[in-house]
């Protein structure tokens, strides 16, 4: 059952794998933005996560430890952003950009000598008979644990934001830090924790790129995935489950264009490679204009620094 040399079941299966990095980075950034902080350094945290995860995995021989290392690397880098924006009250846009520039330089510095090495493999989970179901088994039940883990994280973020006190406080801080402060919540501390969660998720996503998706280390390996993740948060209008949809949409486009390249479509390779970025822009336009008005759903205090004057 092939269409133009592409098997749809395998296409959907690889779509789920391709969307993991941006899904993780986007859900992390969603939490950060819900707390009222705009961290544009997702790309930098992802690539640091990618190299940290890679190095840890290669030296320890364990992919799981690699993912932990990637998450830690991303969280540590995000802490730099946190300290600067929360305590030194720096401009969040500029600091986020600095984080990306710094992360790209630092990652290729750490990554020297790691080119061409193969990291330890992340095996698909053995789900027994489920994996043998025709078509559905191929699509859903032959993935590694990170694919399921990332969906669980989305579910967890949704539950926490919607049904728990923690989520309510987090959203309050993002909607009006002055009101939250007046109620006695530690705005800066809550935001720092949110920023670190975002960093850890971006790092995890980055580690998935270098350990599973590629799996190899090259400079600039994330190739703009962090920026697409930022766009997905807007696309999702700050709602967790829509992040999943957005990530699948972009994962699908990426996989489709890669498959078209491999199948030797008549469209030049460069035009296929630029399609995910163009479609991201298109989706941003559709979401931001007209009745959608994604911006209306944005946390009210997004990007504003908090300084307790009293």
């Amino acid at each position, binding site marked *: 059952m092939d269409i133009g040399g592409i098997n749809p079941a395998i296409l959907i299966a690889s779509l789920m794998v391709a969307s993991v990095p941006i899904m993780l980075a986007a859900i992390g950034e969603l939490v950060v933005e819900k707390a009222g902080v705009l961290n544009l350094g997702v790309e930098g945290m992802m690539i640091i996560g990618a190299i940290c995860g890679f190095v840890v995995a290669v030296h320890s021989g364990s992919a799981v430890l690699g993912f932990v290392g990637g998450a830690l690397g991303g969280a540590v880098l995000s802490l730099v952003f946190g300290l600067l924006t929360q305590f030194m009250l720096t401009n969040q846009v500029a600091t986020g950009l600095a984080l990306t520039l710094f992360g790209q330089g630092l990652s290729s510095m750490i990554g020297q000598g790691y080119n061409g090495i193969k990291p330890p493999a992340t095996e698909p989970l053995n789900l027994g008979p489920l994996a043998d179901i025709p078509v559905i088994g191929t699509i859903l039940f032959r993935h590694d644990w990170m694919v399921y883990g990332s969906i669980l994280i989305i579910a967890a973020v949704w539950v926490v934001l919607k049904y728990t006190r923690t989520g309510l406080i987090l959203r309050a801080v993002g909607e009006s830090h002055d009101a939250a402060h007046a109620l006695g919540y530690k705005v800066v501390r809550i935001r720092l924790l949110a920023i670190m969660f975002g960093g850890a998720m971006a790092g995890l996503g980055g580690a998935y790129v270098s350990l599973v998706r590629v799996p190899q280390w090259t*400079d600039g390996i994330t190739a703009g995935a962090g920026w697409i993740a930022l766009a997905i948060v807007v696309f999702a209008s700050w709602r967790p489950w829509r992040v999943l949809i957005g990530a699948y949409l972009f994962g699908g486009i990426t996989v489709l264009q890669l498959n078209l390249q491999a199948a030797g479509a008549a469209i030049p390779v460069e035009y296929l490679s630029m399609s995910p970025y163009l479609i991201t822009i298109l989706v941003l336009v559709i979401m*931001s204009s007209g009745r959608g008005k994604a911006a209306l759903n944005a946390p009210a205090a997004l990007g504003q620094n908090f300084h307790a004057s009293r």
Partner: protein
Amino acid sequence: MLRLEKRPSPSRTWQWATPVLAVVLTMIAGGIMFALLGKDPVEAIRTIFWDPLFNPQFASYSRPQLLVKAGPLILIAVGLSLGFRAGIWNIGAEGQYIMGAIFAAGVGLALYPVETRWVFPLMVVAGIFGGWLWAMIPAVLKTRFNTNEILVSLLLVYVAQNILASMSLGLLRNPEGGGFPGSRNLGQIPAMANPELIAGTGMHWGVVAAFVVVIAAYVLLQRHILGYHIKLAGQAPRAARFAGVSPAKLTVLCMGISGALAGMAGMFEVTGPAGQISIDFNTGYGFTAIIVAFLGRLNPIGILLAGLLMALTYIGGELASFMLSLPSAAIQAFQGMLLFFLLAVDLLTNYRIRLKKREIA
């Protein structure tokens, strides 16, 4: 306990002192980073900041490089600074730079082998137009559809890079190049070349343009109503709207200027130092210019100095990777670090740090 107290107005002393302080702090932190890499920190810092200018062995080669590298950085950074002042974040200058180069090279090569002196000015116009056009995409999407200009302008960098690859492999490939990617060498075609104007200085038309733009931007910001509007829109958006400043017009204008200047920088680079359109034509000037703009405190004169300093780190970095086998990526990390420190010490401009304990009212 440390406590921050907002200053009634930004401190003028700190406004000039913070960039210097940031550079010093970066040198210290960078030295620690180099020491961790197993290099002698003092020697590394000296190789980056001192040797390119004063070492008798290298200075004759690297001094001209200073202007060659600073030219595009200053051109792009001045454009960006106007937008940043107004709160309009064009961070896709890299893409506009690429498109400027492609448009200019495209016009030039379409006219090949015409040999009149009108070809070069025509290419300048094409380069400006290319960069402007690429910047107009995020600007128009922002004003018409309220799309975030940060994301769109950045995503367009990746699109531009793909167009660049496509051009150097296809449309603009040198027909006499034996199938290798890359265009004809524009630097060797007299009508299109952007040569060194005064031998041994590195001065080319792009550097001349950069100096002119610095002066023009200074006059614009200090003496012209438009410059006032730009500053007003950044500092008090509501007041600006009441004063009749149209945010949409300002967005289109600031994005347009920064795009045009980035395109111009790309044009001068492709006809001069780079020489041809190739897959790896762009070297990140568009991103480094963001650091230059902030290091120069978004002030044209400051940007001039910051551009020279940043060019020095490029040249010194090359020298250090050649002499001390310092990884070239270390310089990129070093530049990123500079921006961190700069943003951090900026706190001293707007706030006072008080040591005393908070009193109970």
